[in-house]
């Protein structure tokens, strides 16, 4: 199967290469998962005002996808686009690292 950083072919139209495409793996509707989703959305809303796509995968519902994407930890966030693909694990409490991984320099976020 593919590496965790493997690029998955998308069914949809070729997306805008500059637009942020994210896949988030969470474990059901646990309070921790809900908290992580909320924190990620807040961050993205704040720093990517031009918009982003976020697909949320419940590992219990789609175990095959968990395996095919090589996900072991939850929450796991895969930044599909723009390239390079990055994998983030954790509940996004370390905002600076999240933003850096998503391609947003930390100092710019500090300004806003």
């Amino acid at each position, binding site marked *: *199967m*593919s*590496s*965790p*950083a493997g690029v998955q072919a998308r069914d949809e139209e070729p997306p805008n290469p500059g637009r942020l495409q994210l896949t988030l*793996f969470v*474990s059901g509707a646990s309070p*921790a998962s809900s908290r*992580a989703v909320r924190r990620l959305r807040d961050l993205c809303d704040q720093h990517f005002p031009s918009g982003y796509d976020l697909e949320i995968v419940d*590992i*219990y519902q789609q*175990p*095959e996808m*968990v*395996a095919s994407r*090589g*996900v*072991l*930890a*939850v*929450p*796991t*966030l895969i930044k599909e686009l723009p390239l390079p693909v*990055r*994998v*983030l*694990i*954790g*509940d*996004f*409490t*370390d905002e600076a*690292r*999240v933003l*850096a*991984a998503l391609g947003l320099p930390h100092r710019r976020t500090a300004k806003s």
Partner: protein
Amino acid sequence: MVTSNNVHDPAGRSGLELPKSPTGITGFDEVSKGGLPTGRPTLVSGPPGAGKSLFALQFLVHGATGCAEPGVFLSFEGTRDKLASDVRGLGIDLDALEQEGRLLVDAQSMAGQAVATGEFDLEALMVRMAFAVDKIGAKRVAIDSLESLFAAFGSRPEVVRSELLRLFSWLEDRGLTAVITGERAEDTLIRHGMEEFLSDCVVLLDHRVVDEVATRRLRILKYRGSTHGRNEYPFLIGPAGLEVLPITSLGLYQQVSNDRLSTGITGLDEMLGGLGVFRGSSVLVSGTSGTGKTTIGASFASAACQRGERVLFFSFEESQSEILRNMASVSLDLAGWVDRGLLHFQCQRPTTLGLEDHLANMRRLVDRIAPTLVVIDPVSSLSRGTSKGDVSAMLTRQIYYLKSAGITAVMTSLTEGGNDLEHTELSISSLVDTWLLAITMQNSGERNRGLYVLKSRGMAHSNQIREFLLSSEGVSLVPVYMGPDGVLTGSARAAAEAAEADLGLGAEQESSQLTEAMDLRKKAVEKRVASTWAEFEAAESLTAQRITASKKRAEALRAARLEQARQRTDKPKDAQ
């Protein structure tokens, strides 16, 4: 599954023995008395390249193909394709097994390090495992390896640890027999302190390179609730995957033969009770260099060929043509036997292969050629490039293997100069049935070969040291001269024998003189006895005469008186 082999279980608690799942790994199931503990996790620990993944995979494949137990392989050591191609060479077809639903491989590479942004757990790992297990109804699982997991989530080892414990207890709850691989650290079984949680069964694999020759080792460190072989067992990765070569699990059940084989050297047969060695026994010929060890081996081979038997000759120092030429110089025509297909040579430098490979190679050849006699010349050179303990372990296995097959083994061993002769460096002397010691004896400016039987089980054997003569007429053993000056050989023996002959002549003369003297004395005695007799006889006859005379006198007196009386009563004739 549960073996009835109670060799290491004197209490014979077979009824209480743990249920076990066979691994299908040759030798391992013997050592572990049936396999891994069913329904429990087993830790397989070792350095990189030790064969941990293969162990895990073989365990699963055997379950899938031999025990109707589907298996899940969760690997973080590389992609599925890489794994499939790695094991294809060992005859394992992952694709087919997966299509049949007997195996599920969930493999990925942990190359990319993920960015940690906060709290996480490994619930997805649980989900993947549960999903795979449920999908094919798995009874066995393998996780390869813990190290990769810890490496991938290096920022939070405590999380990985607690999550793994959760996984292990889940596996146990589901009654899954699991193999978990881990890398061995310096002083602990595996890193990250996982060993305390995986203590049901721990198997250590080791991979050492000694003098450029690789040797692999396996040891069962613990096995809770079960007896097991506790030694270090060499193993190899052969055409059929892992092969453990246990020594101690070899039973001493070989059938023995009373059939005796000639050694090909008349004098030597004489020393061995006149009949030679037992068929299927093992013979060790040891000695310093130039003592004729190879020649003795070749004599054995030649004698076997003469009987029409097949012989396999392993040579680790000389090539076939060298041996043929050298043996022809002592009238051993081995080339003829080679031509007739009775004698097979396998000449190989000991360092061309690892020790285990040599063993496997030997076994393959023995199986193919089916000889009745195997010559290994010399076993000592196998220890080049590896430790002596390894060689003796290997030889032990080889000896038992040959014995169990009823094949006579003749091994030569070089004793390094300065070492005690009656000591094999490889400590195999106690395993062999017959031990011939080839020695050199030096005196009078000569160096002569000698041979004696140090031991020979189950037969009367000579205690003599004989001189071992190699000449263009052949190989022979002659009794050496044992005199007050010790053992003499060569020209010294001849000289001593001549001196003894002289001495013998003198003794003969002396004894004849003594006999003569004694004869004379005897005659003298006889004479004295005769004269004493004569004296006695004379006295006796004199006495008899006297008695007769006295009787006559008495008679005459009485007659005279009667006459007187008669004259007086008739008429007096004369007046008085």
